[in-house]
């Protein structure tokens, strides 16, 4: 029996904009992700995909409903989480490697050992750099790296403290198609080695079907889950696989559901 790792029960979330009225982003959202699973969330833009990640990480609190991560209710920022955003959000005054070391300066138990074990941690960061193809760029400043390289560094930063839960908010959204496909492979490789639970929010349906075991489709705002698909392709997956009939069928199914959700929202 696999453990339920991330559980959202009947979540409502409202963004407070004015004095009285707010914007309802999520309504009655349920989500259930087992430990070690690679989940993807897709949906029309503005449907509350990113909001789900912020709720799971504890950056936002829902007005109604309950969120559990690793069997504990989320009340504030969750420390077993690594997060990567659409913008690489590297701190411009730190070198690439110092950026990647930031979580170790914040999260316990690394934090109190940071000074004593700095060399060891740097070695760990260098190993990660090598895995994502950034070896030799450790001492560069963020602005000296291309967009794809910055995103790789951001991925390293999300993984350095070996989080059990990895939250990815359209991490490859701003990259060109070739770089994106390279990074899919890198991410898959990292996931196969470490097997964290992953929630990937994306608007790229090929990306979702290539990377995830399970794909959740959301309705337009206020968002809730309207369909769940299992993507049972053998791993490691290849780009060639994305042209197979089975993959294309899944892609079409996802696409139709989201189109319908958009049409409904406009009607």
């Amino acid at each position: 029996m696999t453990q339920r790792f991330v559980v959202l029960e009947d979540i409502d979330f409202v963004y407070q904009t004015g004095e009285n009225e707010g914007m309802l982003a999520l309504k009655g959202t349920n989500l259930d992700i087992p430990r070690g699973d690679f989940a993807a969330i897709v949906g029309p833009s503005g449907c509350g995909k990113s909001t789900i990640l912020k709720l799971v990480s504890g950056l936002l609190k829902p007005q109604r409903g309950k969120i559990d991560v690793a069997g504990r209710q989320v009340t504030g920022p969750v420390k077993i989480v690594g997060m990567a955003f659409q913008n690489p959000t590297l701190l411009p005054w730190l070198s690439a490697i110092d950026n990647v070391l930031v979580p170790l300066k914040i999260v316990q138990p690394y934090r109190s050992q940071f000074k004593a074990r700095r060399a060891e941690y740097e070695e760990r960061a260098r190993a990660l750099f090598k895995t994502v193809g950034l070896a030799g760029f450790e001492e560069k400043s963020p602005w000296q790296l291309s967009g794809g390289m910055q995103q790789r560094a951001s991925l390293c930063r999300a993984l350095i403290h070996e989080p059990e839960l990895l939250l990815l908010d359209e991490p490859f959204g701003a990259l060109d198609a070739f770089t994106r496909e390279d990074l899919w492979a890198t991410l898959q490789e990292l996931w196969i080695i470490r097997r964290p639970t992953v929630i990937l929010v994306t608007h790229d349906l090929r990306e979702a079907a290539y990377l995830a075991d399970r794909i959740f489709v959301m309705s337009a705002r206020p968002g809730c889950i309207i369909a769940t698909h299992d993507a049972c392709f053998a791993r490691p997956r290849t780009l060639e696989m994305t042209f197979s009939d089975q993959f294309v069928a899944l892609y079409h199914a996802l696409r139709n559901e989201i189109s319908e959700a958009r049409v409904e929202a406009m009607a």
Partner: protein
Amino acid sequence: MIRGSLLRRALPCLVILGMFLVWEALCRLFGVKEFVLPLPSQIFSVLVTRWDALLPHAMQTLMTTVVGFIGGVIAGTLIGIAIGSSRLVYDAMYPLLVGFYSIPKVAVVPILVIWFGSGTVPAVITSLVICIFPVVVNVATGLATTEPELEDVLRALGASKADILWGVGIPRSMPYLFASLKIAITLAFVGSVISETVAANRGVGNMMIIASSNIDVPLVFAGLFILAFMGIALYALFALLEQRMTGWAMRKNEFSM
């Protein structure tokens, strides 16, 4: 390339030298009287011949300015952090700060003299008070404009407010702080000299007041030259420090010094 950069470095000196030459030439051409506008050459000769008498005044002004400046920067940074990290404090304090800053500092000096007597203390306090505002405004702006995405990187890791302030807010505001230091150091001279002209028996401001009452105009101008020189020197020092500390924020080499 090397010639170009050498020329660029020499250019400010050449402009200053050129200004003196034009000044000298025009004064001689139109026979301007010494007590109206002295010749640059006269002013420099005063600087050289009366150097021993001028030096203590210059050191006094430099000391009061720097002490006031340091105090002002520390106070300004602390107030700026308080204002910049809380919307409530920002809204509550800002009108008061603007009000304080709108008061001409020369009007405050007599009050300081009543409280602290004449001399060094009011000069230090005047330059301190005049420094605070630009530092507060810049530090607060730096903190208030920190991208929430950068803060989220730390917040998602469960970082405390203090962690976020030290890890993101303060490094992010450093370019703003250094920009304000360059303004503040020149303002600090204004503050200390105002105070010296009103109530002191030492310092460049005091010396200039006495010299002008003796209609010793070259000596008055010598005082101005000393102030201008000290201003440039300290400005350059902070510009250099800025470049060393916050080079990451200045990538366009056309603008970096």
